[in-house]
């Protein structure tokens, strides 16, 4: 399977990546070769093997339900481009 330039554009849009029009063909080629590798792996017979959700075969450790975090708003908001009344301000989104 190989990706066309429309696929690349749509993947870039979904990931909110800006890509240069002149590089699209190159991206299509590299991405296609990754898919090619996956296709190659498909040749391995995996009948009866349970898919893993994580490469490590261990299970999640759980945390006790306790509030341990303190308010660090001032610290976090130092790196925010803009804040007001304790809110992070972002370009207007209206849906």
């Amino acid at each position: 399977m190989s990706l066309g330039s429309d696929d690349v554009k749509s993947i870039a849009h979904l990931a909110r990546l800006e890509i240069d029009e002149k590089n699209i063909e190159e991206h299509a080629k590299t991405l296609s070769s990754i898919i090619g590798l996956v296709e190659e792996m498909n040749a391995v017979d995996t009948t009866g093997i349970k898919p893993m959700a994580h490469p490590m075969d261990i299970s999640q450790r759980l945390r006790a339900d306790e509030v341990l975090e303190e308010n660090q708003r001032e610290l976090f908001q130092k790196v925010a481009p803009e804040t007001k009344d304790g809110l992070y301000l972002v370009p207007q989104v209206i849906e």
Partner: protein
Amino acid sequence: MEWETVIGLEIHAQLRTKSKIFSSASTAFGAAPNTQACAVDLGLPGVLPVVNAEAIRMATKFGLATNSEVCKHSVFARKNYFYPDLPKGYQISQMELPIVGVGSIDIDLEDGTKKTIGITRAHLEEDAGKSLHEDYQGMTGIDLNRAGTPLLEIVSEPDMRSAKEAVAYMKKIHSLVQYLEICDGNMAEGSFRCDANVSVRPKGQKEYGTRAELKNINSFRFVERAINLEVERQIEEIEDGRKVVQETRLYDADKHETRSMRSKEEANDYRYFPDPDLLPVVLDDVYLEEVRKTLPELPAEKSTRFVNDLGLSEYDAGILTTSRELADFFEAVINESVEAKLTANWIIGDVSARLNKEDLSITDCPVSVIHLAGMLKRIEDNTISGKIAKDVFDGMWKGEGDADTVIEKKGLKQITDNSAIEAIIDEVISNSPNQLEQYRSGKDKLFGYFVGQVMKASQGKANPAQVNTILKDKLK
């Protein structure tokens, strides 16, 4: 053409944990903006989510209570989309292996019958933050306190056939999650909200019609209205020769309309994949058994017990068990050795009516269990009639003391002395010669008139049963 409505609901129940699902920040409602949004909630680089054990336990409780399959191996996945209230660029949710699988719940229909609604699944996920669009001149304000709050999304099968059934189902789940103490059910604060998938099809047709999704409905009344409105709209579309498009619509309660949320219909492509930051959650039989032991008596079991052991009607038992608090109140009153049916009538009748009128819940009832029980005992021992009890109840509601105090103060004690009642009756009869003549010449209906007059003359205090007997005798 006759149309059939098909509805499926996705209910978001906010779990009552103290801390968030993947971080140790507080979930308390109403804090100043962003004071409860920690590095994990903000999606800062290098942070790792760690699953809250309590969220897992609560989801398990729900699964067990709905006879659903609780998955011993569940996986968290990333749902990718960009919106500023979701700083990571993805929401941690569950896709292929949710914690709760197929189950069901019975709902009560208006005609008294039951209907089983299938539960497709229930999965854990994190809530997003809040966007504030006003007052920031061309900017949007973001409060991430809510980001990372644990949600249980309960997805139903498209088994409901009317807005009323959808409401009945939503109420059932609402009551259940509160019984289980996994969600506070506060709809005004958004702890319990729902999306409705609605479609119509010609009656008899097997295939489903194209559905629209109504977003974020946060009251029972709005669910019913929004669905009915959407059904009307879809039928009109089809009958006018247009097509229903699959889309997300928003119900506007003020304008009483649903409208499309997206101008350009762009198919969502969330590109779910297992979250590499989180390992599979593995539960074993010992754990499930432990959780099962903590399940409270559920509404359906409680209701059956009320019918079988206390002799209540199914209707009364159903109403009393709609909320755990109401059922607890009822049981507390009968534990003061008051008869169950009398107690049920009062709680379902006068108590609930007054609470509704003043917009209070049973836990805020100004009349205590002890005071209500005390009054009901005075009805049982004939000190007051049921009618006079309404005045006593009103007095207790207004804080005038317990039943005996109110009865004493207002002189409401029932007249049970035969001779006193006879005297009142004699006077009423002698004041109504015309009615007496008509009655004696066969106009039986006038009996009610005499009863009314006697009750009026005794200011409602004459014992009604005695009045009936003596009056019948005297009118002969």
